[in-house]
């Protein structure tokens, strides 16, 4: 199975718009939404059945029993995450700040602290015939996004069996959810935006992706909003030896389609035609050396 990951660095460049078009064009039997903080892919890929759900447990959270607490303050003194406060009764844990390290439990002289499993999100799996769609929603304020992303990908792999191509819609940024989604990917397509912010962010995501030794390609979305910057990106790719997969113009029809829950490959429009070209180039790069027997 070849895994294609769509990233951007900057948010709002069009990862999900491109990913959903690719899914339609390739008729991929497995896809996943790894933007677990703000998943959007399900709004375009149509699913009639309700998914199977599973709780996602992040790090455990500490709890202080107010009846046992003697207010010595040792827990608060040693907590590195500012997760312990005091009220009139006793010390207590701010669950949002708690990282589950267990230091408070260790230092408490009266065993008033214990660690408890904590649900940090919701894993969902849609399985319709041969098609597998894995996604998740992180509970707000949670950490351990990387671990949830790994579970989304694992769920997809396990449920899909032996298939040729899996498409993964990634998250913005360069931190732990992105790093987790890079692990196991065969290729990354970076959707860049021709703005100063977009270029800066694209450079940082390329730097991050290079650590993983995956095939990297770049395409420019909303390319006509700033042709000068779009060319800068093309030149940058040439200089860095990164394959340029094409450009997609800004398209009002695209916004309309997406708002109706359709991919741009579903309708006849300029961005739809352009994304087909990007898709073809991407597939050539991904399958160029022939199939690996593993993964």
């Amino acid at each position, binding site marked *: 199975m070849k895994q294609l990951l769509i990233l951007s660095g900057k948010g709002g460049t069009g990862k999900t718009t491109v990913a959903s078009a690719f899914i339609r064009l390739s008729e991929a039997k497995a896809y996943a939404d790894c933007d677990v903080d703000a998943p959007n892919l399900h709004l375009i890929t149509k699913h009639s059945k309700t998914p199977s759900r599973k709780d996602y447990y*992040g*790090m455990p959270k500490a709890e202080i029993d107010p009846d046992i607490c003697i207010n010595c303050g040792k827990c608060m003194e040693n907590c590195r995450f500012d997760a312990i406060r005091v009220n009139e009764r006793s010390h207590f844990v701010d669950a949002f700040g708690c990282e*589950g390290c267990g230091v408070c439990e260790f230092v408490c002289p009266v065993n008033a602290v214990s660690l408890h499993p904590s649900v940090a999100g919701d894993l969902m799996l849609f399985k319709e015939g041969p098609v597998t769609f894995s996604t998740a929603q992180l509970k707000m304020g949670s950490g*351990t996004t*990387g*671990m949830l992303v790994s579970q989304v990908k*694992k769920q997809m*792999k396990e449920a899909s069996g032996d298939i040729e191509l899996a498409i993964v819609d990634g998250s913005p940024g360069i931190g732990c959810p992105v*790093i987790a989604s*890079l*692990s*196991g990917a065969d290729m990354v397509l970076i959707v860049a935006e021709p703005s100063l912010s977009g270029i800066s962010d694209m450079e940082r995501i390329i*730097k*991050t992706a290079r*650590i*993983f*030794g995956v095939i990297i390609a770049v395409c420019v979305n909303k390319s006509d909003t700033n042709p000068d910057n779009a060319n800068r990106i093309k030149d940058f790719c040439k200089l860095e030896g990164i394959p340029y997969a094409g450009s997609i113009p800004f398209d009002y029809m695209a916004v309309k389609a997406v708002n109706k829950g359709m991919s741009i490959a579903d309708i006849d429009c300029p961005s739809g035609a352009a994304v087909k070209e990007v898709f073809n180039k991407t597939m050539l790069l991904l399958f160029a050396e022939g199939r690996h*027997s*593993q*993964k």
Partner: protein
Amino acid sequence: MKIAIPADDKNIDSTVCQSFGRTPYFLTYDTGTETVEFIDNSAASSQGGAGIKAAQAIVDSKVSAILTPRCGQNAAEVLTAAGILIYKTESSSIKESLAAFKEKRLGLLQEIHAGFHGHGG
């Protein structure tokens, strides 16, 4: 010598698990006595650092080599520090992989996939 391989089930007829750190079990095989044993991998349900924990368990069980399709950087560091060799499996069958190892048909794993190590600096 004793070797280990990540296993999807507690059964020699089962498949090689694709993940080293989060494999549910490790099958250990003694090439001399041909004894087969299973280790439960407690790292499978770890929040993080699963590769490290799994590798520590392997180190503690006195294994000389592991056979695996993939291995992460953190786990590889632990194993290499302990002098444990990492071989790359080709087949998804445990039995096939063990046979391939005995017949010296397996090569060392070259592509260690990255962990978080700050290469970006």
